[in-house]
């Protein structure tokens, strides 16, 4: 008898990401910007800075301040979400900031601040890791010095099976959710959260699965950034 394959609620294999696409430089007025589509997730990030920090007494003498705002648009969810920053949004802003802070070389800009505005236009689960992935592309596009890119991906447990890139339904009805963010070249973990329960072995498996997904998204990040320069290299109408 053929082995029964585990098919997820949206028809994906357990180790399959949703359809993804990253674009850099989507906003005209921000210093740097990026957009990510991960399944039905649609997130736009704008970066400003480095600039003088106000109020002055908050500025740090030895490095820049990274300010992060994660915000979900009122039309991003099935039921209207109040535009007021919720407890969840404030917490996510904080965890995204802590993840990005480790990659950005902040000590080059004392007494300055860098602003990262994350706007979730459409949400379908795992928005925090998708936001981190897009924010890091926007920071690179803004010309802000970074030690490495930051890329995030999530894994979870659904019906006793470890799955990659948890969607909205799986997040609600699954047993566990493990979002991670890494610096792929420096091999460092910058975000690790867990919701639900996993055994030690399951955790290891989920972590490895999320890591694999993150590396796939890292390639897409690189492609999105390199595309910006490729466009400037060839004259229009020239044969390659």
């Amino acid at each position, binding site marked *: 008898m053929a082995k029964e394959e585990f098919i997820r609620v949206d028809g994906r294999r357990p180790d399959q990401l949703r359809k993804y696409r990253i674009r850099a430089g989507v906003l005209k007025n921000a*210093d*740097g910007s990026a957009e990510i589509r991960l399944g039905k997730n649609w997130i736009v990030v704008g970066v400003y*800075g*480095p*600039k*003088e920090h106000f109020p002055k007494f908050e500025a740090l*003498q030895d490095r820049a301040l990274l300010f992060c705002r994660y915000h979900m648009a009122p039309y991003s969810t099935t039921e209207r979400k109040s535009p007021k920053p919720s407890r969840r949004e404030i917490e996510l802003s904080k965890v995204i900031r802590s993840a990005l802070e480790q*990659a950005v*070389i902040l000590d*080059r*800009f*004392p*007494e*300055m601040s860098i602003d990262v505005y994350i706007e979730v236009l459409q949400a379908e689960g795992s928005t925090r890791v998708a936001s981190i992935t897009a924010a890091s592309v926007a920071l*690179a*596009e*803004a*010309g*802000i*010095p*970074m*030690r*490495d*890119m930051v890329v995030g991906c999530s894994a979870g447990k659904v019906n006793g099976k470890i799955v990659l890139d948890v969607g909205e339904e799986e997040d609600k009805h699954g047993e566990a959710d493990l979002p991670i963010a890494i*610096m*792929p*070249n*420096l091999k460092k973990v910058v975000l690790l959260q867990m919701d639900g329960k996993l055994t030690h072995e399951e955790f290891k498996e989920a972590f490895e699965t999320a890591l694999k997904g993150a590396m796939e998204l890292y390639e897409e*990040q*690189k492609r999105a*950034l*390199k595309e*910006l*320069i*490729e466009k*400037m*290299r*060839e*004259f229009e109408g020239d044969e390659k």
Partner: protein
Amino acid sequence: MSKTEKIVVPGETIKVYSQRGKEEGFIFRIGKGNYVFTHLGVAHIQNKKVDLIPYKNVYIPKIGDYVIGFVVSYAPNGWILEIGSYTKAFLPANEVVKEGKFDPKKVELGKYLKLGDALGALILDMNRFSNIILTLKPIKEGVNPRHLGRLTGYYMIKVHTTKLPRIIGKKGSMVKIIKKKIDGDLIIAQNGVIMYKGEYENFLILKRILNIIIQYTYASGLTGRIAELLGVSISEENQGGEVNKGG
């Protein structure tokens, strides 16, 4: 001595390094002999040396840079100017007020420079703790004294500072070509402000050329293309008018 050229993103590791890349802060040391690129750009690697042309970079002024700033605020003893860097610059009042010793109680600063005035100046001093001090004295050779001080009647274009090397060209080749086509006073400041005084039609041509240069920053043979487009031959040794590149 093979030369390789590749597009790099932040975090890509490299074994070799150059003093230049390190100084300009485009590579970051992560361990013994290991470096990572910190910017997106095109890296030229030759003979264990790396030169990165970044896609975008934060403009950090150096002492002696020629910049064009705009008055945004007054201080008791001078003006605060926006120069497109990460912080604003300060121009002491005694650089402009020449009548005797400057006394903040008696002198009305608004009489000399108003908010929004454009000003060409040199960086006198700066440190990493966000103090940039400007001067109007020609402390460096190669700067036209006419371009120091208030600039009036100019058209202005702002470009990103990483595009300036391409706009100026090798030994000023691109600027020379542009100057052959359009006459008038052209100033290229190192903070990415380009000022032009002359006919409006020429300004529109200049704007178009700059747009093309910005769009194809990383393309090879750009100078030839621009010369072809403008109908100017590169070989002619016509210097045109004076161009202030600020060094």
